[in-house]
């Protein structure tokens, strides 16, 4: 029973961190209608951006998250402008956006190797103290994991405020809800796309750095969490931000609870079984709209 509660706590904390890049993935899907797999690369570059600020410039780790956001955002806009937008523009109306999605996979490989070229493969760590777990009754909770989850929640709240209460945010939602109508109203789709891409890249970068807090940093950081991130977005329903959050918690808790019943080596497999169950009940994910 305690083991179950502990697994749920661990899963929720892991899910909060996972939610940040999952939101990034789903936001791009909502506004630009394609799966940008390069989110993994934005997370890696963001983590390195924050690392440079933290270790070379001596900024404490939490404020250095701004560097992660900047690096992730800039990488996202650069990749989109140079490699992806041109492919999106060529799509016929209603055509599945495969070409940009495939190009984004190549872009992930490119970004991984940009990081490798600049920083090498050696594991890097942030200048961040480490704390023993707090014990709340029989449950153990890591202060850093709590802090990570809190930062993730703040980032999510910031995104909600941005989407709900700023002009740019409302425009983004208009484009996401109905691109045709938005175009008729004279909304500059390229500009909105850039803002959305930057915001998503910044979130991915932030998520990358949060993951780096608990692990160490190397060029494969984004790639390692990629599957779980995409899975979270899919479970929640592609294009739905609340869905991505819910999906991240489901994947996080599912994988942790799995260790109670099966060999921990099969954690990922159980995570996918959970996804399959959700999708067989709701083929477009929890919050997804049928047909997207």
């Amino acid at each position, binding site marked *: 029973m305690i083991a179950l509660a502990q697994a749920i706590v661990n899963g929720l904390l892991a899910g909060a961190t996972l939610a940040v890049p999952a939101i990034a993935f789903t936001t791009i899907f909502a506004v630009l209608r394609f799966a940008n797999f390069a989110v993994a690369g934005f997370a890696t570059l963001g983590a390195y951006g924050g690392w440079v600020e933290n270790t070379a410039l001596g900024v404490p780790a939490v404020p250095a998250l701004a560097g992660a956001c900047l690096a992730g955002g800039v990488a996202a806009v650069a990749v989109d402008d140079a490699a992806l937008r041109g492919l999106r523009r060529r799509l016929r109306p209603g055509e*599945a956006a495969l070409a940009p999605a*495939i190009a984004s996979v*190549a*872009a992930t490989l490119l970004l991984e190797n940009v990081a*490798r070229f600049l920083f*090498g493969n050696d594991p890097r760590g942030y200048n961040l103290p480490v704390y023993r777990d707090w014990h709340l009754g029989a449950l153990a909770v890591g202060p850093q994991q709590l802090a990570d989850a809190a930062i993730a929640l703040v980032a999510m709240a910031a995104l909600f405020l941005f989407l709900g209460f700023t002009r740019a945010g409302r425009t983004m939602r208009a484009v996401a809800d109905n691109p045709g109508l938005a175009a008729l109203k004279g909304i500059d789709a390229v500009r909105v796309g850039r803002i959305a891409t930057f915001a998503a890249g910044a979130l991915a970068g932030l998520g990358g750095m949060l993951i780096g807090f608990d692990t160490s940093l190397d060029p494969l950081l984004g790639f390692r969490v990629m*599957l779980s991130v995409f899975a979270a977005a899919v479970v929640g329903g592609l294009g739905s931000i609340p869905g991505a959050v819910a999906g991240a918690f489901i994947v996080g808790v599912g994988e942790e609870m799995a260790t109670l019943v099966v060999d921990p080596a099969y954690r*990922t497999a159980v995570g996918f079984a959970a996804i399959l169950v959700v999708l067989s009940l709701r*083929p477009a994910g929890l919050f997804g709209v049928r047909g997207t």
Partner: protein
Amino acid sequence: MLDYLVQLSSFAAITALMALGLDLMWGLGGMANLGLAGSAAVGAYTAALLGVKLGVAWPLAWVAAGLVAAGSGAVLAGVTARLRGDYLAIVTLGFAEVVQLVASNEIWLTGGTGGIPGVPAPWRGSLRGIAFDAAFAALAWALVLAAALLLARLGASPFGRVLRAIREDETVAAVAGKRVLGFKVRAFAAGSALVGLAGALGAALEGFVSPDNFAVLLTLTVVLALSAGGPGGTWGALLGAVLVTALTEGTRFVADALPALSAVQAAALRQGMIALALILILHLRPAGIVPERPRAIPKEAR
């Protein structure tokens, strides 16, 4: 030099066979199956286990590899039948991950991460050196050509036309009275069979299988080969496979010419070049090098 090219052509043939399998599922049927590495692993392990543990002759082992992969593909298609596009892509990606985990952890069956060495190949005992390599390459390409011809005919057949109709609009196809699920499952099974056969060929060529052979990167290579070559057009898959093999291996020589860089920088540059080249191809030839020809609307579909 010749030996090297012959060897690479065998690897290119294996990629081509997988790209053809994907072309059937994705190019024709519009189903983005990213579980190719999983199907390849199923085929490779089937052939390896039959050959090494039971001494089954290679032709039989390869047929079995195709059949078992087809079976797993059919089950996967049945389970994911209601999923579309990106959802299907990610669930199939998960399938490949699960197959790799099973191969790594069920040591009693698969030998675990140490893999299975000594997988038999046609003529391995009787031919040596380049003679063996050339015979293998010829056999592999003969299979690729046979598969390509079959696929080209399939594409023009009523079955292919229904698949394309499902690709364009599933609802319309269903309304037109086509049993969509049945067509999807058959396309998935046939495509997976080709991928599984390719897996068996790979196991025979290397004489070895291990979970590491079936990482996500394998799927990406095939997807990129097909996108570069041109999905839906059969022959594009072949050209794309040759191109991707030439690209990944040719860049090694570029890295050799850059002694000023450290080894890890040269390796990063090489992979960066591969990624960049593929992005460029997608931009310059968005429908692939051999685009799918628009077909006349057949009488019975009117």
